[in-house]
């Protein structure tokens, strides 16, 4: 070992060498070498399935590596459980928060590392410690609040404090921005920076290129279970990182010409909808979509988008108001007559509402039309026609599957989404409702879905795009409606609006108020 290498390795908080992990049929991590310097923010970038989360779960002791070593401060360590990881000063903020909604903040933080006086839990000392940590790192939380009452941004702070409470020096943040508003993201970045300045070493997992440039000191890109390379924001660019991630040139910008909107295809008037728990989540929404345009609905998740789309597509009864599709009142109609008016729907939860997972791809491709000729005659299936249709669509929409007869559950997320897109777009439609169409998809699939949406618009179809991804909304929409607590705050032309304006509207702040 050379002297240079020695000094380099001495400044490392964490290092992995040759980490390899097999899952049945998949090589998730293939000899992964990764290192983290003390006090740095190191972004780990890669598409879904690139092996980022698997690597972190190995470091955090949730999985065991088949081969490879982990070093902390230059010494090899054996991490077999998350308890070991915690004892070694590693903390992880998971993508899906590991918080118990019915517990208080203090209870969540102390869980697994409780302090007791006699037999009784010492809530008071925990609350005191939480307040100290809040103060030290600028993470404001109330230790006595119940987690279920807190917005996601605050819940994330609780997760971070939970790691700090366990005296973590290394913090792993798994896709921390996925659930946040742009303002919350900026807050989070400030917190991460302050943590790094106070000596914490941070691994920041993401697949969003812009975030990497906003916050990272170094960037490691993974693809197909391997490390493609490590670089710094100064040495690279967004397109360069994107092609590292995907392995080919990727179009990051959506190419689209100006819209030429025609007549109204969907008209929604003063719609009120309640959710399953009886809360009014859509409170008087009114908007319209014309053929040849994309109306984007921007908003933080959980502001009524789910119920709005369900009401439009006939999956949920609206309480009051009107939905007019091509001048026909379809309010309160069941899905089939609505589908028959020419409405297509790419649902938010593709695995629950988009596909019948155990059914073969071919059957999933006729879910909207199976009762019609040529797929059925006098109530009897024509399997030849269904199979023929399946093979053709799989080819046409580039669904990567070994066979069109495979159950839909066996496909990757991106290919499942392509099956849904193929089904919905292969019949004559006038309106496409796409709810979170690229959630959880990798850059390559996102590019594909975006192209399809623009293509449908240009072919004279109206598109209603619901997305929590502001970049996606801004790239695809011709007009943008911002929804906050079930109300449309404003509808703005896409080419005249800034991200900041949208961010404020998404937080329920109207532009007039902030101009003062």
């Amino acid at each position: 070992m050379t002297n240079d290498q020695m000094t380099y390795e001495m400044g490392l908080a964490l290092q992995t060498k040759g980490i390899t992990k097999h899952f049945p049929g998949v090589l998730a991590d293939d000899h992964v070498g990764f290192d983290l310097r003390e006090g740095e923010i190191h972004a780990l970038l890669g598409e879904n399935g690139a092996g980022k989360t698997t690597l972190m779960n190995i470091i955090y002791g949730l999985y065991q590596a088949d081969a490879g070593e982990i070093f902390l401060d230059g010494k090899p360590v054996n991490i077999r459980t998350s308890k070991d990881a915690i004892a070694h000063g590693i903390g992880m903020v998971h993508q899906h928060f590991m918080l118990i909604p019915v517990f208080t903040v203090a209870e969540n933080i102390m869980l697994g590392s409780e302090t007791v006086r006699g037999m009784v839990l010492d809530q008071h000392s925990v609350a005191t410690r939480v307040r100290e940590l809040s103060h030290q790192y600028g993470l404001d939380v109330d230790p006595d609040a119940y987690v279920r009452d807190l917005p996601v941004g605050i819940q994330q702070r609780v997760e971070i404090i939970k790691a700090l409470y366990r005296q973590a020096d290394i913090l792993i943040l798994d896709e921390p921005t996925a659930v946040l508003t742009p303002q919350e993201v900026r807050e989070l970045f400030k917190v991460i920076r302050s943590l790094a300045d106070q000596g914490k070493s941070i691994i920041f997992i993401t697949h969003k290129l812009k975030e990497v440039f906003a916050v990272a000191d170094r960037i490691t890109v993974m693809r197909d279970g391997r490390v493609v390379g490590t670089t710094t924001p100064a040495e690279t660019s967004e397109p360069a990182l994107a092609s590292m991630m995907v392995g080919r040139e990727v179009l990051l910008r959506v190419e689209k010409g100006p819209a030429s909107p025609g007549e109204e295809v969907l008209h929604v008037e003063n719609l009120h909808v309640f959710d399953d728990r009886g809360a009014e989540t859509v409170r008087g929404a009114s908007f319209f979509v014309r053929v040849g345009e994309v109306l984007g609905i921007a908003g933080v998740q959980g502001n009524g988008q789910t119920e709005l789309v369900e009401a439009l597509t006939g999956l949920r009864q609206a309480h009051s108001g009107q939905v007019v599709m091509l001048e026909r009142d379809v309010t309160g109609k069941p899905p089939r007559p609505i589908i028959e008016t020419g409405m297509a729907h790419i649902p938010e939860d593709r695995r629950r509402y988009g596909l019948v997972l155990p059914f073969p791809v071919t059957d999933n491709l006729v879910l909207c039309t199976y009762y019609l000729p040529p797929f059925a005659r006098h109530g009897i299936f024509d399997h030849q026609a269904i199979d023929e249709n399946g093979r053709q669509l799989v080819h046409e929409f580039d669904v990567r599957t070994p066979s069109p007869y495979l159950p839909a559950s066996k496909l990757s997320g991106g290919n499942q989404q392509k099956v849904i897109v193929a089904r919905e777009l292969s019949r004559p439609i006038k309106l496409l409702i796409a709810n979170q169409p690229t959630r959880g998809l990798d850059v390559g699939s996102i590019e594909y879905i975006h192209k399809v949406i623009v293509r449908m618009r240009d072919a004279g179809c109206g598109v209603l795009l619901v997305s929590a991804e502001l970049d996606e909304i801004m790239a695809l929409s011709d007009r943008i409606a911002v929804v906050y607590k079930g109300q449309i705050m404003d509808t703005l032309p896409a080419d005249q609006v800034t991200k900041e304006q949208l961010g404020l509207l998404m937080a329920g702040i109207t532009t007039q108020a902030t101009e003062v």
Partner: protein
Amino acid sequence: MEWRRLGFIALIILILIGVVVMIGGGEIAPSVIVVSMIATTIAVATPLTLGALCGVYCERAGVVNIGIEGMMLASAFFGWFAAIYLNTILGMAPMPSLIMGVVAAILTGGLAGLLHAVLSVTYKVDQIIGGTVINILAIGVTGFLNRQLFFEKGSIFGGQVPHAPGVLPRIRIPLLADIPTVGRIFEQQPIAVSAIVLVLVTHFILFYTRWGLRTRSVGEHPRAADTVGINVARMRYANVIIGGLIAGLGGAYFTLESVPSFEPLMTNGRGFIALAAMIFGNWAPFGAWASALVFGAAQALQINLQFFREQIPSQWAFLQQAYIVGLVPYLLTMLILTGIIGKTTPPAADGVPYEK
């Protein structure tokens, strides 16, 4: 426990007591009837309280247990068997035999709990099926052994049911039991008293200790518990076994405290009513106890009305039919489970096996 629910519980108990007072009030002083009703309610609520506590431990840890009925039936039998075996065959004195019988019943429950844990935690069998297995197994085993051991010629007891060592004696709670009239309430048998103590202990454990916090965490969000280093499988095993031990004590009530004999199927659905009490009590010890008292009061009504059969007014003649009054606890169960009195929320991961 929310006030509305508590109010409903108090109301039903008052109505049930009121009915008996109205019918028997001419014969016996109302105060005596009220005290008798309360004392009986507490006593007969015992297996329901213990069964419900068993459910609280299991389900708070995320394991649904519909096998409480079977756990109590098996414990009732083996506790009873141990007591008379020690007493008649080995010649142990009645009191120690009864105590050893209770121990045997508790251990039987613990074993049944272990079986349920193996099925639902290790083998991830559907927990409803696992519970059903325990119920069917208990009916079969106790029915078969009861016949083989006591009624077959040449069996250890020589083909006849032996003389029982009696039941556990009442304990007089000092001072309280000396109060005139009301004192009767504070003269209870030991299992009834321990049920109430266990309600207090369980409440303390569940909401004030490390064990309780961890138990609730594996019932709400096992993955979150796992990520902070809590062994989900171990917590679930331990709580299901603890639940089983408590159900075992509940089983002992039937044959060692209530009556000195065993009959096939003698738990008579009380394990399921206990489950209903736990649900209506919102998976909390005090709630479960209060709900158990409602069902206990319904049963106390049946018991106390027997003394006043002559006094039942003719327009209420149907109350003279014992089986109609006997239906009251079951009707109450159905009424309560319809959710008319408000819905309760189970632990979020209740009934869901944890997959790493």
